[in-house]
């Protein structure tokens, strides 16, 4: 007579089998999806809920919160120091350089999405193509580091 598996080990075995089959399903078997625009309805609902929550929070805080109006309370910064000038002053070009570098690397990442989805199907050729692509961009990144664009403390 076979010994009956102890509860915990049995559950662990079941879990392992389940995990393995799920992993194989995730890694090897791509679902033959047939997406239609109506499949985005959940995202639309989430958008709507997010907007509704923002509107709800703003309206409720407006209705529930106390209101005291005075020149001191209405000042932009209530820290005891009179505000001087206005906020529309020219800013350092450093911020802009950082933003441009951000956009460039953002575009780089965009190219990696279709590559990652097709990683297996593309095989070695796709891998080498992406290595070459990354080489050029990382050369640019090395140039940026060397030039000290991302260093803030020096003038």
């Amino acid at each position, binding site marked *: 007579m076979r010994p009956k598996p102890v509860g915990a080990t049995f559950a662990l075995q079941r879990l392992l089998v389940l995990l393995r089959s799920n992993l194989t399903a995730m890694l090897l078997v791509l679902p033959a999806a047939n997406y239609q625009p109506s499949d985005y309805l959940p995202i639309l609902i989430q958008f709507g809920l997010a907007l509704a929550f923002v509107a709800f929070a703003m309206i409720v805080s407006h209705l529930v919160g106390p209101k005291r109006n005075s020149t001191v309370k209405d000042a932009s910064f209530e820290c005891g120091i009179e505000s001087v000038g206005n906020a529309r002053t020219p800013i350092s070009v450093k911020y802009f350089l950082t933003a441009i*570098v951000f956009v460039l690397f953002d575009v780089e990442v965009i190219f990696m999405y279709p590559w990652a989805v*097709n990683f297996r199907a593309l095989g070695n050729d796709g891998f080498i193509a992406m290595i*070459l692509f990354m080489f050029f961009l990382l050369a640019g990144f090395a*140039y940026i580091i060397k030039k000290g664009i991302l260093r803030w403390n020096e003038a």
Partner: protein
Amino acid sequence: MSPLFLFLSFVALLSALGVVLAKNPVHSVLFLILTFFTLSGHYLLLNAQFLAAVNIIVYAGAIMVLFLFVIMFLNLNEETEPHKPALAKFAAAIAGGSLLLILVAAMRNVNPVGYDPTSFDSQIGMVDRLGLVLFQQYALPFELASILLLAAMVGSVMLGKRETGERNF
């Protein structure tokens, strides 16, 4: 025409008008973000999910940051706002009007071809299909794109980096 398409088109046109007509440049940028979101909705209706996501990530996320930076760079105080002479306004109206005329004349004879429902592939805009075409058929343009990005990087560093000894503010 589905009501969703009509709604998206309505919002897109209205917010695009808002970009042009808003007095405050920051409001223009916010209207432009709304326009991008409605265009992404149009992409989703066309079943082009990758374009829709990229439009949100790159345009509404990153390019808009650059737009805001440029607006912050400009001196936007009311008193320094330049007033264009009437002649410049007149010339601008003529130039814009002729551009509109050319566009209308070019589009007038366009005959949109319908699609064949039997051979139409609704999944052509998906990420996986696009990736296969991009990395197999268009591998060279893909590599050239990296050189383009590299050139942009070097160019922006050349223009924007203050070298030591230069006068700075």
